[in-house]
């Protein structure tokens, strides 16, 4: 089951560059939440703070509090452990190139020490079904490299890989921006189904996409969260002038 996310007083830096300023946000459980905003506004940095990936950058620094469920992820838990509970899908599909489709999906469990083949078989099948990829790859699970799939299939493989470790939250950083419209709509369908079981946070440049998949939307600008509300409200009647300018295409 998904859990809610409570962010307060979150600041982030890249070196001396203050990229996130004092973010305050409640992301409800089992909903899809979209984050929009122009390039460089901090929305990617924001999701990378939710699974402590930001700090893997040598010059990345974070202050503030992020609570996922009951857990304060910067104080109560190791970064490795939180990343098992908060899965991430990246902008460019990044399957492990030397691994088969099967091994890619099983990698999260295997690399954390699970060896039981029966369990792994089940998890791989379940995850590939969830990611709507099973039918396309089931005959060549162990023969084909993950890198041999098409871009859209690779991205669904990455989603399956993230689902296999059974996270509570799924972070998606522009998961469809490198894909064609058909693959994009498959990913969107997937998000729609997954949100009954997971809390989903999706960064997107595509405002129609935000409108299609997300109940709530947040608008970022220059490192600040300008507005956060129901997607319907953001797109029809935003409170802030800057949000309105952005969604009507007057800048950005």
């Amino acid at each position, binding site marked *: 089951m998904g859990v809610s996310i409570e962010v307060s007083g979150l600041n982030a830096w890249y070196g001396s560059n203050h990229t996130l300023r004092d973010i305050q946000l409640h992301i409800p459980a089992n909903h899809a939440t979209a984050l929009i905003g122009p390039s460089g506004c901090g929305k990617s940095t924001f999701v990378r703070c939710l699974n402590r990936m930001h700090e893997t950058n040598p010059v990345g620094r974070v202050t503030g509090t992020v609570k996922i469920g009951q857990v304060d992820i910067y104080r109560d838990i190791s970064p490795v452990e939180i990343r098992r509970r908060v899965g991430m899908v990246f902008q460019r599909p990044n399957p492990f190139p030397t691994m088969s489709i099967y091994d890619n999906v099983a990698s999260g469990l295997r690399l954390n020490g699970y060896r039981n083949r029966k369990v792994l078989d089940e998890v791989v099948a379940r995850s590939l079904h969830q990611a709507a990829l099973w039918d396309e790859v089931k005959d060549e699970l162990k023969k084909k490299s993950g890198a041999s*799939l098409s871009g859209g299939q690779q991205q669904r493989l990455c989603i399956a890989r993230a689902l296999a*470790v059974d996270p509570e939250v799924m972070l998606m950083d522009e998961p469809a921006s490198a894909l064609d419209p058909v693959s994009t709509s498959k990913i969107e369908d997937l998000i729609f189904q997954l949100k009954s079981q997971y809390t989903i946070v999706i960064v997107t440049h595509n405002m129609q996409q935000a409108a299609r998949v997300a109940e709530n939307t947040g608008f970022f600008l220059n490192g600040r969260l300008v507005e956060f509300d129901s997607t319907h409200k953001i797109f029809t009647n935003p409170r802030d002038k800057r949000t309105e300018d952005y969604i009507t295409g007057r800048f950005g």
Partner: protein
Amino acid sequence: MAIASQPGHLPARARTSTGARRILVNHLATAAAVGSTIIVVAPLVAIFAYLVYKGASSLNLAFFTQIPKPVGEAGGGMANSIIGSGVLLAIASAIGVPMGIASGIYVAEFGRGTRLSNMVRFTADVLNGVPSIVMGIAIYSLIVLPQKHFSALAGGVALGIMMIPTITRTTEEMLLMVPRSVREAALGLGVPNWRSVLSITLRTASPGVITGCMLAFARVAGETAPLLFTALGNQYWSTSINEPIAALPLQIFVYAISPYEEWHRLAWGAALVLIALIVLSVGLVRYVAGRGVLKGAS
């Protein structure tokens, strides 16, 4: 200006490089590339052909099964040198491959940007430039003198240390070529960093790392100078690592500078066998390493 940017109204410069001239330039560039390739490959082919021409006639069963005969007696073989080279290279690889890969991993991953890692990289480059005879003398004073005898162990250590810098540097470069997105994928799954480095980054880089090991192996397989002071050479059977041991390059050296026609002939044969064995072992490693590669893997 507006007119110039429309199709059909290209500026003069753009028009000249179309048609016949473009095709000509294309052919010239291709010819230059093919020509360079031939110039590079030709010496290799020439050397190999000459070796076969001079050496093939002395290869017979005795060459592979007998040890050298005393001067004046016809026949004899290189069996002890072939086995000796095998023993030396096994010791060298047992030292050079793990240490080279481990230090490459340290330089590229765990110690990236630290002073120690920069020092290791610098040391590896310097070590790479040390003349091989100096390596022989160094091991002579470190192992041969204290033990008071030449040995296969000393020879293997000398060759092993020579392998380290090449392997360290290629391992480092191959690891750094693994894209950040692949590392992030592993970290994003909650895999600890050390595990991600060993199971994901190193595995992704492994074809290049293996190439580096094979390069180092092939290089030291033909080394003579460091063995002169360490393994010494041996005209008799020995597989003990505490005794002086025969090696193909040493045997080639001794036979080639001798005044005897028969020995010259054997030296040519030994050189051919040495190259064949190097090619064979590199090919074997490539075959074994390549068996697990999947369809469409990049």
